[in-house]
């Protein structure tokens, strides 16, 4: 957890509406990338901010707010994903391929990647989202998810390898899809 400063957040002059505006895209995007349902993600994001408002007195710095929002949003979205079970839990290997005929060029690469990420198991999905949406390093991800750093690193590597393999397979079926050379 980020080190707390002695001065409470309120003394920093940040009002709640500003906090919402400042962090809404982060909170909503984590929920959306983990749940793949815009309405549910917005509802969950609202709940998170409502909860933040109730705990506002405990927030001691902007860094504390950021850490708290990431942790609470990720955990709630993971809980929601598990609870809803909108689709059966499938491993990435057995997940259905995105429909290749819709992949006609670079703009569709993002869609394909998001679909593949959405097919990852919840924990791996959260790790990938926190790594590439939030640009967190494995140590920070481990702190947010309360799991060992080694687990984060191994799951991230495994998820990346599977995503790359799946995307290569999809690209083979969609000639217009550009993957970029490494």
């Amino acid at each position: 957890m980020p080190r707390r400063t002695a001065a409470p957040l309120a003394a920093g002059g940040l009002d709640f509406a500003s906090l919402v505006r400042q962090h809404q895209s982060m909170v909503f995007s984590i929920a959306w990338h983990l749940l793949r349902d815009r309405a549910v993600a917005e509802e969950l994001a609202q709940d998170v901010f409502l909860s933040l408002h109730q705990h506002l007195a405990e927030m001691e710095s902007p860094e504390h707010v950021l850490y708290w929002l990431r942790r609470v949003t990720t955990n709630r979205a993971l809980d929601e994903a598990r609870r809803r079970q909108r689709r059966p839990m499938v491993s990435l290997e057995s997940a259905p391929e995105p429909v290749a005929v819709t992949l006609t060029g670079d703009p569709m690469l993002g869609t394909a990647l998001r679909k593949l990420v959405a097919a990852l198991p919840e924990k791996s999905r959260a790790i990938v989202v926190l790594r590439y949406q939030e640009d967190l390093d494995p140590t920070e991800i481990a702190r947010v998810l309360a799991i060992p750093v080694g687990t984060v690193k191994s799951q991230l590597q495994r998820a990346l390898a599977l995503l790359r393999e799946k995307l290569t397979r999809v690209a083979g079926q969609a000639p217009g899809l550009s993957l970029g050379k490494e």
Partner: protein
Amino acid sequence: MTPFEDELRSALRRREPSPDFTERVLARVAAAPVRRASGVSQPWIRWVAAMAATLVLAAGGLEYRHYQGERAKSQVLLAVRIAGSKLAKAQRKVQMLSHRSSS
């Protein structure tokens, strides 16, 4: 960062929620019942309450032990008084018998 990871970063970039998101959050906050700040949530108050409860329990325990001691003492005194009266009675009987046998 590899090109693949760059693609992933681009695919997972942040999105904006609905334009009225902030207003809806603020409306929900305004509509939510005011959570009364409980004094008990303050850590130092919790400590004081815990200490007070411990002291009350300790004092209660001491008082109970004192009560038990007093009760035992009064029971012993009662037993001694009963035994004393019985002894006096027996002594009177012995004296009476010895007085008869001598006369």
